[in-house]
Every structure is written in structure tokens, then in C-alpha cells.
């Protein structure tokens, strides 16, 4: 079980800001594939992964990273602070 959070246009396309996901995914990529296979709104949000960033437990990470022990996965577009 992992908490998945979404920001900006990913949140809008998926339709929820956060959700608990029952998953056995080994890596972030596996989780993305699992979600994308679930419903078209996920497939649409994750269609272009070059435009998606990921954080694991609030630390920037990447799609190859393992999910073992991770409590919170966040997906969002490239950041635009400042």
C-alpha cells in the first residue's frame, strides 16, 4: 500500500490530488505501468514521461528507483518556482 499524490496538470488529468494504491510494483516505472493499464485517465497523464517528475517520500527521484519501504510517491510536472 502506497500513498500516491499528484500536482498541477497531473492532478487535473487524473482527477484526484491523492489516493492510496494497493500495489506490488517493484519500481516507479512498474507503478506507472500498473496505473496506466488501469484506466485511460492514468494512461493520458503518463503518456509523456519526459514531462513528468517523481519524488519518493518527498525527495526527487527517478523512474528506475525501487519502491520498497516507500510510503509516499508524488508525480508532477517540471517545477516552475521563483
Amino acid at each position, binding site marked *: 500500500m502506497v500513498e500516491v*499524490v499528484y*500536482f*498541477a*496538470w497531473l492532478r487535473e488529468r487524473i482527477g484526484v490530488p491523492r489516493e492510496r494504491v494497493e500495489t506490488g510494483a517493484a519500481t516507479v516505472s512498474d507503478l506507472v505501468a500498473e496505473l496506466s493499464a488501469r484506466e485511460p485517465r492514468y494512461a493520458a497523464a503518463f503518456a509523456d514521461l519526459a514531462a513528468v517528475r517523481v*519524488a519518493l517520500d*518527498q*525527495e*526527487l527521484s527517478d523512474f528506475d528507483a525501487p519502491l520498497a519501504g516507500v510510503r509516499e510517491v*508524488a508525480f*508532477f*510536472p*517540471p*517545477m*516552475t*518556482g*521563483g
Partner: protein
Amino acid sequence: MRISVQEAPFDLGAEIAGFGAAGNAGAVVTFSGIVRDDTGRMVALELEHYPGMTEKALTRIAEEAMARWSLADCVVIHRYGRLAVGEPIMMVATAARHRKAAFEAAEFLMDYLKSRAPFWKREIGVDGPGDWVDAKDTDEAALNRW
């Protein structure tokens, strides 16, 4: 060192009154970002952020600046929520012994918080919410010089 992620406005003058004096600083640099309208049709920016991660990311970036330029002090304030055109979005202030370190540290802070702090901007136009602002390749490239 002070980091603040807040919805409320800040007072740049009040923030830097006496800033750096305790650390025997000889130079203070401030930068403030303001919501601008390039099209004549924008009324506000809406800033979303990732509570928790934002504070951690800003703290890490500020700690790196403090250590790398031996700063006497450093302030980073970044707002979120709906900010009208003309309102200040964020500020950084750095205090160092000499101006070169203060300027460089301020630029480093700006470059890093533009693409490593989890904020996202959306333009609110006269006709309502518009597009999310895209990250610029030049912002990512700006990190390479550090």
C-alpha cells in the same frame, strides 16, 4: 537562516532591517520576484506547491548556499496561492563578508529554487484559468554553472 513558505504577503524592508549585522556581514544582496503580465490579459498567477517537500527542498538549497559562500545569514520566502499581477512572489536575501559571495549565493538560490523547489504556476487571465507555465530549458541549463 530563515525559510518561509506562505500565502501571506511579506515586507521586504522589514525582512532585511538589521539583516546580517550579527554575523559581521559587509554585503547584503536581495532579490524579489514579482508577478508580471507579458500579454496584457493576465490578472494573476496561481501557485501550487507540495507542502512538506517544499520546505525541505528550500532548506537544503539554503544550507548549501550558507556553507558554500560562508554566508552570515540567508532568507528565502516563497508565496503560494493566488497572486495578482504586481504582487511579490518570492524573495531571497544573502549576507556575506564581501559582495561577490552575496551576489553569487543569491543567484545560486534563485537558479535552484526555480527548478528544484516543488512549485507550479498557472496563469489566470481575464477569461479565467489558463495554462500551466512550462519549465524552461534555460532554467535547467542554469544549474550547470554551479
